[in-house]
């Protein structure tokens, strides 16, 4: 029943095994039995979205996607794969850093006395199924932003702490993917509880499953499984390796932080501004864009007030509104702020790039602005290689 790998384990844990579709179904059941809210990919409204899964039958078996700048189409696949898709319309940010969170509320009593109550976020026990390696990196980046440094965000931590992460390595990159350029995929290195690699070949549809934590090993031990075999291992490694060679996009092979710093006055910013709608879609779908604003609301009596935090975007004119007007008044300055922060000054602020190469901003930009194309154009304008992206 079990493979040799188990000999190296804490008692009862399993580090590597092969699951079939019933094993995957048992995984969802086991996590739900542990009281976890399981979030994973599922088909809704013509896209593969992230939503709560009642069972593994909701996974997008047999669905793939066809991606291009500004277009996303669901496509039927004849191999029945569950995870052969990328760049959906949301990211895990939607669950870890929700679009609107109450921070405190206040009441004024009959005598005019004020009672202020800090919001105590309800602890959510999430399991995320189908986290791509690029998105795993994005979660790590959000961890740094929201819970690293001096100030920790309680709303984020209440959702993030103890979240069970099931990574699925990428074997089917989209035309807008460039995780290889950003060093974030398509293989998963660390930071997961379980890592799956989907294999569909003559020997069937199965998942090579590795545990990365004790809890992952304990969950894996509960599932119907078989020992990992070399055929499956080889197919998994090859699938991921081939994915790395099929990236639809790439970044110019230069230090992007330096490129951003040295091209602040490039003509290319005018070119991209002509195509930019300032609609904010790229920031909303980005798995690492974290900016928020605050909204204070009162009721009609004025005796009850609440402060809410909601997603905001550097594309909004009011985002930089100070006394006297917006600091970034032009769309050019706002696009440039977004890209130079994402690829450049993020390093100064958080010690990494803010981009993980998931390609969502390319797909979900209505006019199809492609940040890799913009980076290549800036690179060319700065005297770099004339090669097309």
């Amino acid at each position, binding site marked *: 029943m079990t493979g040799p790998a188990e000999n190296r384990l804490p008692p009862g844990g399993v580090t590597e095994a092969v699951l079939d579709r019933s094993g995957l179904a048992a995984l969802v059941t086991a996590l739900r039995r542990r009281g976890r809210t399981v979030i994973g990919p599922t088909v809704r409204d013509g896209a593969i979205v992230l939503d709560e899964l009642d069972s593994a039958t909701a996974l997008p078996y047999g669905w793939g996607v066809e991606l291009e700048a500004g*277009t996303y189409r669901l496509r039927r696949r004849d191999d029945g794969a569950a995870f052969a898709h990328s760049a959906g*319309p949301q990211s895990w940010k939607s669950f870890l850093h929700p679009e609107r969170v109450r921070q405190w509320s206040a009441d004024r009593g009959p005598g005019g006395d004020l009672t202020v109550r800090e919001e105590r976020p309800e602890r959510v026990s999430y399991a995320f199924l189908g986290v791509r390696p690029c998105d795993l990196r994005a979660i790590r980046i959000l961890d740094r932003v929201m819970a690293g440094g001096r100030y920790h965000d309680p709303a984020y931590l209440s959702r993030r702490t103890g979240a069970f992460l099931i990574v699925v390595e990428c074997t089917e990159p989209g035309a807008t993917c460039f995780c290889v350029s950003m060093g974030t995929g398509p293989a998963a290195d660390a930071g997961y509880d379980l890592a799956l690699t989907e294999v569909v070949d003559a020997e069937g549809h199965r998942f090579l499953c590795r545990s990365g934590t004790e809890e992952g090993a304990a969950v894996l031990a509960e599932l119907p499984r078989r020992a990992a075999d070399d055929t499956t291992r080889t197919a998994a490694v090859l699938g991921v390796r081939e994915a790395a060679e099929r990236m639809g996009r790439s970044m110019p092979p230069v230090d992007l932080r330096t490129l951003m710093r040295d091209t602040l006055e490039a003509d290319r910013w005018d070119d991209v501004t002509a195509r930019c709608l300032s609609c904010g879609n790229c920031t*909303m779908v980005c798995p690492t864009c974290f900016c928020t604003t605050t909204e204070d609301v*009162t009721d009609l009596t004025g005796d009850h007030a609440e402060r809410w935090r909601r997603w905001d975007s550097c594309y909004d004119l009011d985002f930089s509104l100070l006394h006297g007007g917006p600091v970034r008044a032009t769309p050019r300055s706002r696009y440039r702020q977004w890209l130079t922060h994402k690829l450049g000054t993020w390093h100064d602020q958080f010690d990494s790039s803010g981009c993980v190469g998931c390609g969502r901003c390319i797909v979900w930009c209505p*006019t199809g602005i492609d940040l890799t194309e913009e980076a290549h154009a800036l690179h060319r304008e700065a005297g770099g290689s004339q090669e097309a992206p």
Partner: protein
Amino acid sequence: MHPPDPPQSVRPRLGVFKFASCDGCQLTLLDCEDELLALAGEVDIAHFAEASSDTAPGPYDLALVEGSVSTPEHLDRIRRIRDESRHLVTIGACATAGGVQALRNYADVEEYLATVYARPEYIATLATSTPISAHVRVDFELRGCPIDRGQLVEVITAFLAGRKPGIPNHSVCFACKRRGNVCVTVAHGTPCLGPVTHAGCGALCPTYGRGCYGCFGPAATTNLPALIPLLHRDGMSAEDTGRFLHTYNVTAFTAVETQGPGPAHEEGTP
């Protein structure tokens, strides 16, 4: 710190007034079913002809004005209401942009009169339908055709609290993404004005799988020349696109129709 509840007579006096409009925005106030009693407790609804024929003269602390200025009589009346009101808030596309009736601004009104009315000489009308702000100072403009109930309550609540209304000026896309919708343009190829339209409806149409048709008018910043090629790509002819943009907010969209993303080299870029 907290003043005692004022006697009934000193509650702020609210007036609701109609110009050229369909009454739908005023109706939104009556539609505030959960808040209506609380509102009636906080303000003295002094003039609201759609709700009650018992109307009282000014002055008013807050005037909500629906409709556009469309007749010679409107010109005098809006000035009188302004003079009698401490705060004047316009509600809806007619009052903020001239409404669908402003289509006549781009046509010959005499020709319309001759075509529509048997005795055009009985009709007193202006050649144009214009927003309230073209005639008097307006303290706040609430958009929409019709306005959103939640936003109306927010504006009245903000007025009562003496604070700025929390009404964002960004695009419908912000609300659509926050709602977790799948983009109808990107995923379905549906023509949608969301990227250039002022938020406020909660992305109602895209939530039900159809494109936004711009009933809240243009967002604070727009780039229509970049969006129009997408509308053509998704099956709209030039004529369709014209009709799409020229509805309830015809004047507001016309004003930005050929306007790109703004002067690219303008200062303001730290």
